[in-house]
């Protein structure tokens, strides 16, 4: 709960310079067969053979292939590190750009992980799948605690009037926002 709440301030207000990265080149890369034609999870599994060779682990975002330049671009991330692996299939070299992220950015990364994009490939790293379970568990626990909290409040007869007024105020505020955002 603390991690999710604290990272909200970072996600809403922070600005990060993403240009400050270090890069290195790895040669003699073995390109998996037919990577350029693979799609979805199969493509990610084959791209993983490349990221393993350059020593980068984490969740693969997507695989982009430029047929004209014969290059693959593979963004890969995990808490603390963001990397982009650019593979030249002709020269069999890979340039790895790596950026270390701050503590708060790592927590914000976890807040957004696994996320809604590229559903076919999301959760391709073991720890992303574990985190998804932990995040889901947190949500179910919050729902359970909030329902039991409402029950506990309702059993205090002297606080019912104030509580109902606060629930009403919360519902009214949320509906006002939803009118502006979702209608």
């Amino acid at each position, binding site marked *: 709960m603390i991690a999710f709440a604290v990272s909200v301030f970072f996600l809403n207000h922070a600005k990060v310079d993403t240009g400050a990265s270090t890069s290195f080149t790895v040669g003699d890369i073995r390109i998996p067969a037919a990577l350029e034609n693979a799609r979805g999870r199969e493509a990610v599994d084959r791209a993983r053979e490349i990221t393993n060779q350059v020593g980068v682990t984490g969740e693969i975002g997507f695989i982009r292939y430029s047929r004209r330049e014969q290059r693959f671009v593979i963004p890969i991330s995990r*808490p603390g590190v963001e990397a982009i692996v650019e593979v030249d299939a002709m020269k069999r070299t890979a340039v790895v750009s790596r950026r270390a992220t701050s503590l708060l950015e790592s927590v914000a990364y976890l807040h957004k992980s696994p996320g*809604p994009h590229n559903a076919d490939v999301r959760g391709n790293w073991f720890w992303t799948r574990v985190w998804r379970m932990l995040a*889901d568990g947190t949500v179910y626990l919050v729902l359970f605690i909030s329902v039991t909290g409402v029950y506990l409040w309702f059993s205090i007869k002297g606080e019912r009037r104030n509580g109902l007024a606060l*629930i009403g105020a*919360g519902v009214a505020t949320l509906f006002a926002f939803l009118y502006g955002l979702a209608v």
Partner: protein
Amino acid sequence: MALRSSHSRYLSGVLEAWNRRLHYYLGLYFLVFLWLFSFTGLLLNHPRWALSRIPNEAKPAYERNIDAAVGATDIERANDMIRKLGLRGEIDWPQSAPAPGTLEFNLAYPKQAFQVRVDLALNRATVREIDRSFWSALKISHTFSGSRYNANGTSRDWLVTSLWVIAMDALAAGLLVMVFGSYYMWYRLKRQRTLGWLVLALGFASCALFVFGLV
């Protein structure tokens, strides 16, 4: 000495009563916000669920003749166009440079998105509109802050977004107050301390594993 002791007992009682009150007052006010963010958080975490799908098909583009764009900068001209076209939302600039003599921008809020292209010589605007479902709008609201921390060019320029961000910040701050207040309430229950410490340590350790342990 006895006076001081009774005074500190009184203060402790007041603190405890207000901490408990604050806990359920905040909890009740933010209840529906918490349920909204919990529910949409699950949808974001499970993009394959049927409810998670966001319809993203654009309607056929329409054209409209408009008065000349007024303003010295692109943002002023874009805001002028938004007013004249009767649109609303948060401005997002396309990554590629616009064609000469045109003004191009995207405009979005959770329910709708627009791609606007204005021919400044002919004073003609072309608008492509994407309409989303209510569920999709709820889901997008979860992440709608008008600013991306890893994109320096983005900033909030719509009042509703700024107010929504304040609401999200308030919810986060309220949750932190409730969590730390509940730690205090737990700590006052002397018989539950050992089990509490164990559960607390387990929670912190599992979170720390992800924050620090996977670097």
